[in-house]
């Protein structure tokens, strides 16, 4: 229990975040999680790893600075294609969909494995009760092919290193004179909350308009799982009911870019989302980045 490490209570955490439990990697590497998710996605899609044209992995930080997570996933699933990581923080999955869409449209790839893998619990200050309760570790993956499922998508960025920051850790150098940056997750919670709510409302309205769909047409909105209160604040302005908002934060915590594919897999497995359903994805996070899209499953 986190309440045994820092001065907090289950009630405080639940009422302000919606989080009850989350997963913290102790012995598994991030690659272990990513490979497991990749193998499941390939099996579920009926695709063999040799048929992949590209592996893209979104992560704020892999097990190594180099090699990338994607290269090691490629090795472990025995694929042969180009592979690379990118960092769009919590918006990584939506950014990855946009990137895969561009490669496929350009005819440079037919089958892409998009993996989102995040070990957020390595980047938090376990003595800070305001942030150490928020995050979990996880990985999710999808196989993407040419189709007409992606009805609209937008991604945004607004460079900022004040509201939400995780510093890099470097090897000590006798020449380095730069100021040290705190390697733990820090944020201005109030301003990030405002940014999250306002960007969800703006992005979702825009992608739904572009796709020509209304709230009543949407089976479910699957938001990046950062804070239940963000979804609740955006829900009414978007005209969604509680049942239309997917919630996995209670059992996953915030797993950064992995949160959307983790939850999508769960909803498909439970039959709560089925082929033909229209869904909205929306994400926001460090960068500051945001992304949203409408997909027909």
């Amino acid at each position, binding site marked *: 229990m986190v309440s045994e490490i820092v001065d907090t209570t289950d009630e405080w955490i639940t009422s*302000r975040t919606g989080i009850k439990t989350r997963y913290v990697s102790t012995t598994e590497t991030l690659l272990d999680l990513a490979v497991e998710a990749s193998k499941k996605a390939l099996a579920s899609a009926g695709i063999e790893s040799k048929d992949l044209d590209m592996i893209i992995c979104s992560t704020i930080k892999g097990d190594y600075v180099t090699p990338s997570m994607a290269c090691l996933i490629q090795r472990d699933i025995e694929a042969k294609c180009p592979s690379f990581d990118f960092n769009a923080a919590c918006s990584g999955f939506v950014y990855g969909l946009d990137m895969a869409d561009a490669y496929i449209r350009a005819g440079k790839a037919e089958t892409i494995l998009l993996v989102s893998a995040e070990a957020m619990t390595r980047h938090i200050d376990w003595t800070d009760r305001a942030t150490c309760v928020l995050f979990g570790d996880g990985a999710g993956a999808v196989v993407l092919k040419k189709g007409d499922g992606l009805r609209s998508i937008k991604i945004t960025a607004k460079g900022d290193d004040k509201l939400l920051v995780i510093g890099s850790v470097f090897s000590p150098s006798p020449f380095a004179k730069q100021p040290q940056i705190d390697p733990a997750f820090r944020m*201005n919670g*109030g*301003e990030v*909350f*405002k940014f999250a*709510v*306002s960007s969800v409302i703006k992005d979702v309205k825009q992608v739904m308009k572009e796709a020509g769909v209304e709230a009543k047409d949407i089976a479910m909105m699957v938001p990046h799982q950062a*804070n239940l209160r963000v979804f609740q604040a955006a829900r009414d302005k978007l005209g969604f009911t509680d049942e239309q908002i997917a919630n996995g934060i209670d059992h996953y915590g915030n797993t950064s870019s992995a949160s959307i594919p983790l939850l999508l897999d769960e909803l498909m497995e439970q039959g709560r989302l089925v082929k033909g359903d229209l869904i909205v994805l929306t994400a926001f996070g460090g960068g500051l980045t945001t992304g949203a899209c409408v997909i027909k499953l």
Partner: protein
Amino acid sequence: MTTFETIAKIIAENKDMDIADVKMETSFDDMELDSLDVIEVVMAIEEAFNITIETEAGLKTVGDIVTLVESQK
């Protein structure tokens, strides 16, 4: 409407309260609003007045918000 009246109306509507219970000296603790409730109220006020309110400003009472809004008008 005065700045206070507008703000009191926004708080009452947003948080489903009796407007008579929202006074200048009423604190957010008195109204049982947590930090995220206060930010939601601040966002509604920002929209209504077309201003930006810094949420780190240590807002404790309705009067604190009124003073901040007045200073930006």
